[in-house]
């Protein structure tokens, strides 16, 4: 996507674009450096925000972010609801999973409510294939609802991915006390879930699994399942605000100190056509 082409095209349709955008022209000029720092997927939202403000319309971008979050919550809630219905969870872990199930369903309801309050339309629940098979039901994770170890592994990937996806949208909600604070508050709860799931895996015998993501050099994924490499891509990063912390300790320790974001495009690429059925 070439942002400058878009501005040029709008200029042809709306010669007064620069007048309208005038207070924000500096922001447009700076958009290249901005883009290099912000997750790419936030760009449509960020650009949308810019134009919405310029034209004084409703902040539809916030609703888009929330609908994106809602999609993830539908998926997570479905996963735990089905896991519970299929009795894959042993009694000893039932309370842990029940709390998580409760939270994910509450997130769905909460986001639907907030979207409605903002005057938006909450998307409806998408077609979901928990096997990761794009509707076939025979994807690589088909055993997740019958084998508890697999159930926890996939749950861990979902939770860690959820944390990353929320993080990737924070910039698009910058300055919005209500919505950003709510999104960050869900983000933290997803991280609590991720840590708890990882503790359960550890206690079940996966003794190298920590409550935090312990990446190795060149590989973010610490689940032991190669199929979710993409969900952890970039977690091994050790540079933040231009400061490279690689020398501050072992790669696993340094990278575990910071969780990394996933862009909208990355999340879509990971989930659509696998867990979210592509029409």
């Amino acid at each position, binding site marked *: 996507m070439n942002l400058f082409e878009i501005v040029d095209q709008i200029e042809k349709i709306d010669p007064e674009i620069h007048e309208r955008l005038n207070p924000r022209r500096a922001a447009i000029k700076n958009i290249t450096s901005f883009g290099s*720092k912000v997750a790419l997927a936030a760009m449509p939202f960020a650009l949308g925000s810019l134009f919405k403000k310029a034209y004084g319309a409703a902040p539809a971008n916030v609703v888009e972010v929330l609908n994106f979050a809602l999609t993830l919550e539908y998926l997570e809630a479905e996963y735990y609801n089905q896991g519970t219905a299929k009795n894959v969870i042993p009694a000893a872990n039932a309370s842990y999973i029940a709390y998580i199930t409760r*939270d*994910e369903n509450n997130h769905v309801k909460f986001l639907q409510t907030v979207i409605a309050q903002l005057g938006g339309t909450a998307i409806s629940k998408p077609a979901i294939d928990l096997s990761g098979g794009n509707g076939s039901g025979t994807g690589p994770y088909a055993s997740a609802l019958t084998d508890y170890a697999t159930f926890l592994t996939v749950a861990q990937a979902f939770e860690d991915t959820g944390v990353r996806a*929320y993080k990737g949208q924070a910039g698009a909600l910058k300055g919005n006390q209500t919505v950003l604070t709510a999104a960050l508050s869900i983000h*933290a709860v997803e991280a*609590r879930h991720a840590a708890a799931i990882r503790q359960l895996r550890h206690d079940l015998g996966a003794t190298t699994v920590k409550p935090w993501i312990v990446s190795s050099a060149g590989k973010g994924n610490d689940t032991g399942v190669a199929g979710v490499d993409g969900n952890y891509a970039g977690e091994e990063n050790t540079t933040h605000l231009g*400061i490279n912390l690689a020398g501050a300790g072992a790669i696993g320790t340094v990278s*575990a*100190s910071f969780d990394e974001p996933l862009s909208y495009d990355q999340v879509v690429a990971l989930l659509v056509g696998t867990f979210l059925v592509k029409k």
Partner: protein
Amino acid sequence: MKTESNVITGGANMARRSFLRYAGASAATVAVLGAASCKKDRAVGGGTDVGSGDIGILNLAYALEQLEAAFYIQVVATPYSGMSSVELSYFTDIRDHEVIHRDFFKTALGTSAIKSLTPDFSSITFGDRKAVLTAAKTFEDLGVRAYNSVGYLIQDVNYLLVAGKIVSVEARHAATISNLLSSGSFVADDQVDANGLNKTISVAEVLSAANSYLSTKITANSF
């Protein structure tokens, strides 16, 4: 066992000097941070003020990370009796994460950083498991709420992203510690509300909680 020793400048398994040597190479790229604030360590009412704007928020985070790092350095240095190997490995990891966070903020803030704070852990009995886990839960829950609650005040998306990168790690710590203290309490209603959202906190409450463990008090008069 109680302690009031200043362990905050201790370096865990990572010497400050070696950290700065690695971080310093690219520190120039963040030197711009220093230009945004020329007021630091203002002695208002005897406290160290964090400053204003994004610098103030980052300094507030730096203060909390100093506190957490000092606490876990002490926990690992003087383990309570009966600390399991899993617990020790978790505490060691968390200590290292917090030290990295602390030193990261110090480097990022450069000349705008508040000074090194002196903790006061005299209310914590480090020899007692429950006392240590309770204090750890207090620090982690405080950190999670604080980062979440001041996020909207951050103007620069890069700083917002960094805060997001750190807060989820703090939330992982919080859940882990909470489960060690009481199995299954990782999303209990003391921290998570009926909508499934982590609860928030005011800046005044953050300061009050942090200052109860600090000899050097901090203020945030701009917030």
